[in-house]
């Protein structure tokens, strides 16, 4: 048993192509990869919304904002 079908290197390299594990499952891997990517955007947008909300609630008087502007 081997995850890429090879159990030894007793081969002629001109006859060897793809050697990654689970060859044949490329479409499934792409789907998982796409879920990872889209999921990242969803979570990131949620996190950023919370962060912006916190920023909005901070410094009610505006004094710290003025100090931040002074610091450039």
């Amino acid at each position, binding site marked *: *048993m*081997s*995850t*890429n079908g*090879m*159990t*030894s*290197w*007793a*081969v*002629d*390299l*001109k*006859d*060897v192509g793809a*050697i*990654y*594990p*689970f060859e044949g499952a*490329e479409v499934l*891997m*792409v789907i*998982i*990869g796409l879920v*990872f990517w889209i999921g*990242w955007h969803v*979570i*990131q947008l949620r*996190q950023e919304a919370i*962060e912006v909300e916190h920023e909005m609630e901070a410094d009610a008087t505006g004094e710290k904002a003025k100090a931040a502007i002074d610091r450039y």
Partner: protein
Amino acid sequence: MDNNLAALTTVFTEFYYWVTVVFMFLIHVGFCLYEVSASRRRNHLHTLMKNTMLIPLVTITFFFFGWWIYWAFPNGPFITGGIDFDAATANTPWSKTMATNLGDRITGVFWAAFLLFSWTAASIVSGSVIERIRSGAFWIHAVLIGSVFWIIDAAWGWHAGGWMVKLLGYHDAYASGVIHAIAGGYALGVLVVLGPRLGKFSADGTPRDIPPHNPWLVTLGLFMIFTGFWGFYAACNVPVIDPAGIGGQITGETWTATNIYLAPTSLSAITFNFLMSLSGGLLAAFLLSKGHPFWTYSGGLAGIIAASAGNDLYHPIQAMLIGAAGAWCAFKMHHWVERKYKIDDAVGAVAVHGYAGFFGLVIAGFMLWGQPSSPYEGFATITPWGQFVGAIIMFGVLGFLPAWVVSKIMASMNILRIPRKVELEGLDFEEDEIYRDAMDEVRKAEKAMVK
């Protein structure tokens, strides 16, 4: 070089390794930048010199005995054979091939590629112990990890004839274990004895954040490490070899690049997987740390490190997901160990290199299960248990254990940690006073010249 093809192959190989060495120099520049920026202003100069001076110390000791160890110890010794004096003889510091020699154009650049790995191993430890270790103690540790322990692990598990490859089917093509897990384990062994920086933990044991004095330069340092890592990856390959030159089971006449075990791979494969594992690590770490720059960059590094054991063989999407999982492992483990065991790892080196490297070795055992570890007959195939035992050897036996023992000895001799007073006033206190006096004097002198 008895014909033009042999000459071209030799000169190409020589140039290839030379280029990797130049790239890898950036890893050290990055580590220095990162470490100095993470330290506080009153410790800058000592922090910089601590890391810089490991370069000459590890270089000369690697010339004197480190390189010999690699060629002498692939059998243990006394596990699969004795000391390999035949191979090691050409790599003694008095050998004629360890010098200017037109009959051998490869030894110098190959030695240098390994040497830059040695610097990296020592430099990983350097960041975690900043602001309280004595430089002299660190430099002894640097020689031990850079010119003794990592190169023993390379002989065992990163050598075409290494006993771990033969018996365990150990596969670690781009050094998740042989550089990162061992260096992380070594750093942990020192940290356990060294203790945290003053003020790191509150009275009830809650860890305090000690912010870097310059977060932007910390991340620039990590960016440089990413760049140097390209050279590191290329240096892990043999660029071109014919099957007859390998002398294993491969048939036919197709020339190939190989990994360090002389099993076929390609630069194209590792380029895909390097970038995808970096991306997986960055994406995961950004979410985990809620956009914290230090941890996002560190997560990118952890991503590459986690996928490195099998990045010659993974599919790019597999590398991306393993990279993401490696970043998760490093981030969570760092904070858990910090809270639970009061370990002050100033730059997260144990997590990013040690835990992610350990995880990467084990996951490679599952992903590459049953695949050949070597082009030679009689070697074990890759398995989860072989990789797990390998990870224990790298992180624990050759990393944590010797570091802990040597640190205990150093602590008993009172040469490990700087005194409390010096730590509070800063390692650069005296230099800073001298600089301030010199600046005052020159200011006064220049003002006196103004009419």
